[in-house]
């Protein structure tokens, strides 16, 4: 254990002799010692000065050790200051109470200098490690927030403005940064590349893999490949750069707003929801498909559908369909179709928000387990 010296210590002890003896002991160990004769004086000093540790007597006039501990544990700053209680041997019940109230350790009177040093060193070392941990966590939190802003900034600023079509999108990462993404890429006049992906796992590794996938898809979009071919090319590069067995499911498509055709490709991703103007649920041809990043030649489900007037399509990640409540039940796809029938009169953006509200209401107080992303479009006429 590291030997601690030069720490700022507060000794709270009503007895003058014990106070002087403790001060002497501690100064000989190289610490800076401030004395308080009772709890009230101690709290006044704690409010004005920073101490790395408090040595606290229990029985004192004016304000006793319990009262000091009570105040310290309810103060967000003071509760981080370790307290070593000093007591008589017959006061063990009081010591137990102090430890239950948050005291770090205890010493009995008369205080043995060797024991005092050992307990002080141990408590100060623990505090040093806790402080270091707190600093690192704050730094990590700051960096994660920057990462979140960076990640969110690569998502589209605005959705397509296309005469006969309206669009909506919403993303809600489960953690500060997430593995879901969506994109709307202009592919020439009246043509839009729509993409929604979901990287395995969550947090920073998923966010980095997501950024890589996102960038590769953007590059492929410039090559004017059909959606299936674009995903195969993305897979090729992901296989080369993926050493951690991460994978990504993607659904993407080329929406031709002039000819009202959606040419889609799906790699291990849930099928989009699709509903006619009359509210009839439709299905894309059900074919198997595999996620990207796992196999050299993944099975890609490709197809083409005509987009009829008033029909609505919703691309989504499993953070919607597999949202899980406290009882372990999932939202499920059938519920999503039913909801879409009810909300189909709303704008695509409202529909996306409605799904998010549905998820929040469904999971209640449970933690959001997975990233939530929805991208919706409708042919208005």
């Amino acid at each position, binding site marked *: 254990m590291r030997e601690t010296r030069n720490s700022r210590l507060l000794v709270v002890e*009503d*007895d*003058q*002799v*014990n106070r*002087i*003896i403790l001060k*002497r*002991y501690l100064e*000989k160990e190289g610490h800076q010692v401030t004395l308080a004769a009772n709890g009230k004086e101690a709290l006044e000093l704690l409010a004005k000065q920073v101490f790395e540790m408090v040595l606290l007597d229990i*029985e004192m*006039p004016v304000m006793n050790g319990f009262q000091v501990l009570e105040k310290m544990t309810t103060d967000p700053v003071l509760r981080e200051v370790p307290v070593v209680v000093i007591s*008589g041997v*017959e006061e063990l019940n009081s010591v137990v109470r102090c430890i239950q109230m948050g005291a770090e350790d205890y010493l009995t*009177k*008369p*205080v043995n*200098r060797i024991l005092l040093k050992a307990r002080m060193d141990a408590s100060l070392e623990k505090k040093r490690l806790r402080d270091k941990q707190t600093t690192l966590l704050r730094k990590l939190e700051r960096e994660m927030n920057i990462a979140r802003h960076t990640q969110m900034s690569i998502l589209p600023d605005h959705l397509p403005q296309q005469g006969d079509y309206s669009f909506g999108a919403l993303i809600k990462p489960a953690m500060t940064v997430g593995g879901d993404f969506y994109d709307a890429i202009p592919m020439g006049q009246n043509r839009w590349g729509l993409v929604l992906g979901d990287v395995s796992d969550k947090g920073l590794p998923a966010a980095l893999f997501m950024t890589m996938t996102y960038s590769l898809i953007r590059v492929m979009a410039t090559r004017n490949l059909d959606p299936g071919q674009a995903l195969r090319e993305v897979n090729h590069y992901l296989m080369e750069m993926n050493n951690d067995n991460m994978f990504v499911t993607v659904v993407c498509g080329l929406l031709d707003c002039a000819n009202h055709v959606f040419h889609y490709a799906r790699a291990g991703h849930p099928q989009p929801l699709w509903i006619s103007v009359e509210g009839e649920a439709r299905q894309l041809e059900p074919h198997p498909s595999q996620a990207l990043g796992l196999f050299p030649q993944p099975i890609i489900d490709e197809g083409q559908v005509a987009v009829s007037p008033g029909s609505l399509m919703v691309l989504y990640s499993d953070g919607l369909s597999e949202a899980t409540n406290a009882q372990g039940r999932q939202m499920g796809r059938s519920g999503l179709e039913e909801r879409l029938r009810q909300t189909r009169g709303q704008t695509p953006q409202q529909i996306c928000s409605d799904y998010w509200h549905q998820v929040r209401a469904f999971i209640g107080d449970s933690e959001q387990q997975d990233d939530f992303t929805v991208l919706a479009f409708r042919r208005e006429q």
Partner: protein
Amino acid sequence: MDNLDAVDTQTFQSLMREVGRDYMPEILEVYCTDVKEQLQFAQKALLDGDNVEFTRRVHTIKSTSLSFGALAYGALARDLEGLGREGKLDQARLKFPPLLQACDSLRGRLKELCNA
């Protein structure tokens, strides 16, 4: 009464070693002055029937006396503290005088050890 001024020399020497020989007379002086003061307050508390004040004063005497190795003196103070906590001031009144009377001889014994 006879043994109340007895001092455990090992405890005393250990304290003197830890605080420093040069510093010991000063601490001892503080102790002796403080005990006298605490005894006066304790005596007054007994007369007033104030068991809380009495307990607090003998608690302090107990605590500091043990630090100097005045084990018998500290033990009597501890007994008196117990009686004070239980509100048995009648019994405390009977046991208190020896504590008062042994104060000066204890002081002499401690100074003797300090100068040895």
